[in-house]
Structures are given as C-alpha cells and as structure tokens.
C-alpha cells in the first residue's frame, strides 16, 4: 500500500471510529489478511492419460497406431519399407519435439569400460559371466537411453483423454 493510501486510511479510520464507532467497509475489506485461495482443483490425472497422449501425438504426426494396427503380411517389403520410412521420419520428428534422449553410458558401442561395485542395475545391466560384488570390466553392447527432457503439451479435456485419433469424415 502506498504512503498516500496509508495516510488516507489512517485519518478516515480515526474519524470513523471517533464519530460512528465503526470502520469503513472498504478499509476493512482491503486490510483483511489475504487468504490464499485454494488452487483450482486439477482434474484427476489418470496415469494412463500421458501414455495415451503420447500415442495420440505419434498417431497424429506419424500415423504410428495405424501402422501397428494394420496387417502388413499381404504386402511386399518394398511397400512396407516405403510406408515405414515415412512413419519413422514423422514419429522421430514428433519425439524430438517433445522429448530428448541421451545414452546412459558415454562410451561407444564396442568400447571396454569399467563398472564399479555400486552400480545401479536400472541404469547399467551386466550380462554374461558376471561376478558378484566387485568392480568389473566389460564391453558396451548397448549404450542405453534416458529421457533428459520431457515437455508434453497440456492434456486434452478430461472426457477426451482416451482418444488417440478422431474419426475423419469428409464432407463433399
């Protein structure tokens, strides 16, 4: 509150109490302790919503669900390959927009690396002749992937969160 407003409130309160015994309403209102409004109730988020949303994005931009849902057995490899190339290009672009991936180990495939005993098996999976409880050496077979950025758009309206793609009807 600015100085001028404080002076004005002080005088008005003084005379109001002196002559009428009550505080002006607008002063009471503005001095009421600011109660923090409860945050608007966020619609309940089902854990599946984000999964369906990602599928919807991959379908919208890359037709991925159409691709998975189609029986491709009758078509020759060239036909499948041509479609797959297009689906891959667009799904890749869609993923790049909303997510970033990075390998978990920086070394290249085929490099020899050391793994210490405190290794987290969720991050690095040891395979082959693994000995228990000691640091060991091995060759990188797969560098792993982790998501370093995830920026999905806001979820659609609650009722629409199971929709992967709308039906399309062309009006002639």
């Amino acid at each position, binding site marked *: 509150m600015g100085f001028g407003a404080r002076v004005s409130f002080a005088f008005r309160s003084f005379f109001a109490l002196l002559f009428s015994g009550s505080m002006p309403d607008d002063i009471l209102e503005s001095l009421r302790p600011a109660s923090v409004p409860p945050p608007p109730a966020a619609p309940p988020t089902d854990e599946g919503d984000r999964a369906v949303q990602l599928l919807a994005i991959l379908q919208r931009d890359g*037709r991925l669900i159409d691709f998975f849902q189609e029986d491709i057995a009758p078509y020759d490899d060239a036909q499948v390959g041509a479609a797959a190339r297009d689906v891959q290009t667009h799904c890749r672009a869609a993923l790049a927009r909303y997510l970033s991936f990075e390998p978990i180990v920086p070394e290249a495939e085929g490099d020899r690396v050391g793994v210490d005993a405190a290794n987290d098996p969720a991050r690095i999976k040891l395979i082959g002749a693994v000995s228990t409880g000691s640091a060991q050496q091995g060759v990188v077979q797969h560098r792993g992937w982790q998501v370093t950025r995830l920026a999905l758009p806001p979820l659609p309206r609650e009722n629409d969160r199971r929709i992967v793609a709308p039906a399309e009807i062309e009006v002639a």
Partner: protein
Amino acid sequence: MSAARYVVGIDLGTTNCAIASIDLAAESAPIELDTISQLVNPGEVAEGTLLPSFLYLPDAKDFPPGSTRLPWQEAPDAVVGELARRRGAERPGRLVASAKSWLCHSGVDRTGPILPWGSGEDTPRVSPLDASARYLEHLARAWEHRHGGQVRLSEQDVLVTVPASFDEAARELTLRAAAEAGLPAVRLLEEPQAAFYAWLDHLGDRWRDRVRIGDLVLVCDVGGGTTDFSLIAVSEVEGALALTRVAVGDHILLGGDNMDLALARLAQQRLEKAGHRVDPMQLQALWLQCRAAKEHLFEDPALDLQPVTLLGRGSKLVGGTITGDVLREDLERVIVEGFFPRVPADAEPARQRRVGLQELGLPYAADPAVTKQLARFLMRQAADAPGLEAIRRGKGGLAAPTHVLFNGGVMKAPALRARVLDTLNDWLTDQGCPVIAEDGVLEAPDLDRAVARGAAAYGRARLRDGVRIRGGSPRTYYIGIESAMPAVPGLDAPLKALCVVPFGMEEGTETIIPAREFGLVVGEPAEFRFLSSTVRKQDAPGALIEDWGDDLEEQEPLAVTLEGQGTAAEQVVPVRLEAKVTEVGTLELWCVSRNGSQRWKLELNIRERDR
C-alpha cells in the same frame, strides 16, 4: 519515438512473417530474432522463428472448447500461424492465405470482406486489410509476451517491410493494417533494401572493402510468393561511400510456392499415370514432400533422386501407400529450366492475358521465368534519371550490375544462384561489360529471415547515424489530365500525364507543382486520375507527357472534396498541387488555394477498380 527501448523489424511476408529486435539499452546489442508463440496443434502453443501468414476462421465445431487459447488471449475468434495452416489444409474454405498479394491487387475491394476468396455463403469473411492487421496483431502480442509482457510494441520504434514494388495504395493499406493492429506509428522499409541492410550489418565496417564507387548492386529477392528486384548504386558523397536505391521492379506474383506446386503436379501426373488416384488432401501432402525433396536435392548434389511417399488414408496405411520419386532431372527441367531459363537479355516475358472475361483472382505472373522478368527489369532501366548517370550500362542499354545480393528462401539453392549469375554474365558479356566474379556475390546468411533482421538494422542505423541507403519515392507519380479535344464516340479523350512526384523524391521533402492550376468546385467531390511509373525517372514535377506506351500504370484515383465556407454553391476555387513524401515512406498530395491559406488533402480512393 526517442523513448523507445527497442527497434523492431517486422517482415510481413506473403507466406511467412518474422520479427527481429535490437535492445537499444545495450551498447552494441546483436539483432535478436524473436521467436513467435503460436498454436501449432489444438491446445498446444509453441514458439517458432516464423509465423506462417495464414488466418483460419473457425466455427464452433472446429476445435475442442478452450483449445485455441493463447497466452495473451482466452478465446480468439480466429487462428493465426501454424495451426491455421494445418487446419486450413483440411478445410480450405475457411483459410485466408496470401493476404499480402491481395493487398496489392487493385482489381478487388481490398478493404471489403472478400477472403477466403471464393468461399461459401455461410463463411465469415475478412478483408485483405483485416487479415494483414491480424498477423501484425499476433506478432505484437507474441513479441510482448516474449519480452515478459512488460513492454508494449506500440511504444517501440517499429519498421514494417513491404515489397519495393508495392504501389502507393498497398503501402497506405499496410500502414492502415498496422494502425488497426494498434501500431499507429510504424515506418515502412522496402524488402530488398532491408536485405541489403542485413548484409551491411553482417559485414560491419568491412562492407566498404567489398564495393567501390560506381558499383551497382542487384538485389534479387525471390520469396515464397513474390519476386522483387532493386538496384542499389554506390556513389560518393562528401568523401564517403553512399548508397542509393536507383530502381525497383514491377510487382511479380511468382515465388517458391509456384515452383513447389509445379513439382507436385508433375509427381501427381506420374502417380496417376501409374494408376493411382491422388485426392486434394494428398496433393497437399505431396506439395510439402516435393518442397522437402527439392531442398534435399539442391543441398546435396550427390543425390540423384528423393522418394516421395503418400501413405494410404484410413486404416490401410501400408496397403494404400503409393510412392514416386522426384528425380534430379525433374528439378533441372521444372525448376531450373522452367523458372530460371538461360535466356538472352532481350527476352520479354509473356504478358498478362487480357481477355474479355478474365477470371478474377490473384494476377499471377503470366510468365513463370524469373530470368525473363529480370531481363525485362534490367532492360527497362534504360532511361536515365538526373544525377544517376553513374549507372553502369551495356552497349544495348542494359543496366549492368557489378554485384548481386540474393535474398528469399528460393535463392538458398546454390544451383539457382549459379543459374541467375550465369545468365546475368551471359548478358553482361553480350553487352560488352565485365562479368560478375565470385566475389561479386554478396553473401548474407539466413535468407529466410534477413529481411526482418535488416529492418531492425535499418532502424538502428536511423537512430545512430549509421550507413543508410538513400531511396525516396520508388516511382514517378502523375496526375491524369484529359486533353481538350473533340470527343470521339466510343473513345476516351486522350490522356496526358502531369508529373507530380519525381522518382527518388526524398522522405520528408515537399514540392510544389509549378505553372498549373486546377479549378475545383466547392462542395463537390473532385476525382483525379492517378498514374505511376517505375521506369520513367527523368520526369520533373510539372512535366506534361503523352504517348508513354506501357511505361505508365494507372493507380487508384485520388479524390478530394473542398468544403466551402458558407459561400454560394458553384464556387470555383483555383488550387495548385503540392506533393510530399512523408517520413514513414508514403505519399501525400495536397490542393493549396492560390494564397496558400487553405489546404485540402487528396485521398487515394482504394476500392474496386474496373479493369
């Protein structure tokens, strides 16, 4: 204006807009290309470096409720940018595109609700002016949003670029669109000049090492929708290098979109010959794919072909997939030979068909050959303007550039730059002039966004006494005067043209048209026919010309009504004409009474014109 914290350059393009700004508070701040928040999908706002110049007019069922919300607007009644382009491809009847081309098309009512062109009766419509205002408004809000919502764009020093070939009415309408968007004090700058400023900014002081006195720079700007040429001469003023824009081309509706569509049509024909059907939606997809294929092939000369794939619609994605190829030879034939043929300097582009029942719509260039349009432009600069003898000329009269500056997305392709240069060098050799060597090509980066950058650079140069291109009026302007000759039935009285604004008349100057008075009747609207020329540069104010062939082009008429001071009707007031080129880059014509005590402004009558 002096209080502005930023100078902001806006490229209001035919297919894409861009915005760049410079923070004046920092001593040598770089030019920032500002990202533009826009809807890219329903419910999803993202930032892009370009704003596609598309306006979509949705109905209640187009998008789920609330999904067109912008950070600065809860429920916009129209969508601008990427989502507009996407949804518009699915429902073209509600999509406004190429508003800028409509803005300079005098055959239609540009302030009337005519867009989307040819849409159904139940569709809301906007005018080309409104659509341009919407883009500017979106750019303003997005720019303010990006700058934290604390600064207003209307309080900055804003420059909006227009094609050099924009006529007076189109410039006026661009200013009006800016005012409608809440930007009443913008300045206009010609796009080829802006591209040149981007180059100047890129080089810093080193630009003086690249050009010498007497040099002539051709700016060849081929964008998505238009082709625009300008010539900039390097001369000496008070011992320093000075730049003057000495010529601008005619408005040519020809650009990268035409080229991509030509490729897409070829691919479509080929697919249909193979027994496939390509529906309009698929043609859209094909168009995009052909553009990508074109860019890949131009970028990588080792590639022989690029596949294009149309996925099946519906659930038969793999089963319905059809494929084709865009071959390098297609590119050579359709784009390089079709749009950039190696023609002689006297090649005339095919002229606009003028048949009785011309289909209304945009007046696309009748000849798609950019090189022919360029030949015509350089040949038509034969007439010398006073003080511009410095223009280097070939023996056949061709204006002979010493340097080329390319601009626009199309000119990113090295093969097309090489073709333009080779063709130009053919002409120069024929005309007995030295050819343009490799270092004669002035390279500026980022051809898609150079115009926005250059506009901001120009804004800073204005404020800080930097290098500026002297331009002035890009055309010579005339008032039409009907000759006093006996009327012949069925024929218009022959028209003479009185020069009122000379070519290159500088911003912020005025001139009085000598030795001619007009009698105007008080209280009655007076209309003047108004003409312009981009090639007659030698006419001085007051010059009366006839027999101009096709050097002059008729513009919207000018109108004025003299308000009397309660005197009797039928009073005739003798007036002189006074012309002024304003600081923002537009033209004003005034009627001034004999004693100079009263002035009336002539207004362009921008409305549908009979062709």
